[in-house]
């Protein structure tokens, strides 16, 4: 602990916080870990069965994933207190037809204070 204080004081005095942010010659910039793991399950509200091939996207919809055969999805996205999630049935009639849904998730600060912030969503879709 004592060493850590010395480290911070000298580092800040000579350079400010950049003393602790570095990149190796042929490496990348450091990742500050500002992400959130969003996991979940999409199922039919009518039957309770998981739905495969549902598109789950965030923000401007550029980042997306599809549910697997168990209706599960998982992806990392930028850390924000409020994240808009879009759930869309894009495979037409393959798994019958469902009404698209979007939802705003609000993340508590306490979740962001963990080493690996994550949320789990249970999503039910209404059949068309």
């Amino acid at each position: 602990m004592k060493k850590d204080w010395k480290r911070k004081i000298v580092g800040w005095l000579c350079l400010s916080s950049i003393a602790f942010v570095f990149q190796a010659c042929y490496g990348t910039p450091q990742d500050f870990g500002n992400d959130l793991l969003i996991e979940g399950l999409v199922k039919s509200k009518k039957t309770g069965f998981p739905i495969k091939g549902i598109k789950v996207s965030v923000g401007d919809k550029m980042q997306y994933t599809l549910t697997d055969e168990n209706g599960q999805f998982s992806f990392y996205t930028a850390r924000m207190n409020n994240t808009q999630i879009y759930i869309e049935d894009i495979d037409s009639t393959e798994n019958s037809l469902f009404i698209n849904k979007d939802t705003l998730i609000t993340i508590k600060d306490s979740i962001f204070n963990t080493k690996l912030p994550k949320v789990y969503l249970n999503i039910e879709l209404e059949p068309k």
Partner: protein
Amino acid sequence: MNKLLKQALFREFKKNETKLHELNYLFWECTTRCNLNCRHCGSDCSKDSQYKDMPLDHFLKALDTINNSSDNFTVVITGGEPLLRKDIELCGREIRKRGMRWSLVSNGYLYDEQKHISLLNAGLGALTLSLDGLTDSHNWLRNNDNSFKRVDKAIGLAVSTSRLNFDVVTCVNNRNFYELEEVRKYLIQKGVKAWRLFTIVPIGRAKVDAEMFLTDSRFKKLMDFINESRKRNEIDIKFSCEGYVGKYEFKVRDSGFFCRAGINIGSILIDGSISACPNIDRTFAQGNIYKDNFFNIWQTKYILFRDRSWTKTGQCADCKQYKDCQGNGFHYWHSQKKNVLVCHHQKIKYE
């Protein structure tokens, strides 16, 4: 703050960091296969590598020896070209699942929209792409006519995502030297926030090609270019951490020169060797994950990296800058330890 005082404090800081040697940055050379055949490649990578890609579970076994990794610990996946691995997303997810962060160094050739999304989904947090000039000079160095077009697209994707801490690196050589200003404009126009410039190390394929290496006069002009560009504040431009640059210290980078190889930076190389930056002479390896506990090696070995007094030899023996330079970048030393391969300070001093 007075420069001398700043340098003295920085020396203390480096001493303390060396003593603590906290592992913050771990390179994983996951493949030595490459889809390009760059003229300057320090690894002599090729399409047909003599090594098979390291299986993910072998790497994870070594990674799992790290107990209590530091908060900012990052695995930097490098190669070869890491995007040639079909399981790259799985590799990233397994690292992130352990609460560790991961990033990627790529030539950008295979970085299309689909790959961009799948890597983000897997928790990619930082990315470095190589751009070595405008169309002709980039394609020349990369030995591929489509290379610029591909990396241009990759850069566009990378800048579109605020989640990624992203930068572009450029290996400065005699072909692209006079177009650096144009490259700077191009990057600003693309929305790139950070740009790092290197010179080329005389190892691998590069060592026999004179066109790769800047004269002392050009090297000094490069320092002036970086210094002047930093004052404009249009892009976060910096010289890489490859060497000590005397009067340009604290002017061409955010901080002074500090080679952190073996101090904060470790690596697991393609054959399981445990070392520091991948461009360091492989005879300096400290162990091998196939017979040693990785973290135990990190904590107990690396003596040559943490006590650089052995570098006070050859042209470094009587150098007045030694206390700030300490033998330049570790990758400029061969196993014979007789003399440093390149002295950046000398390039500036006599110009």
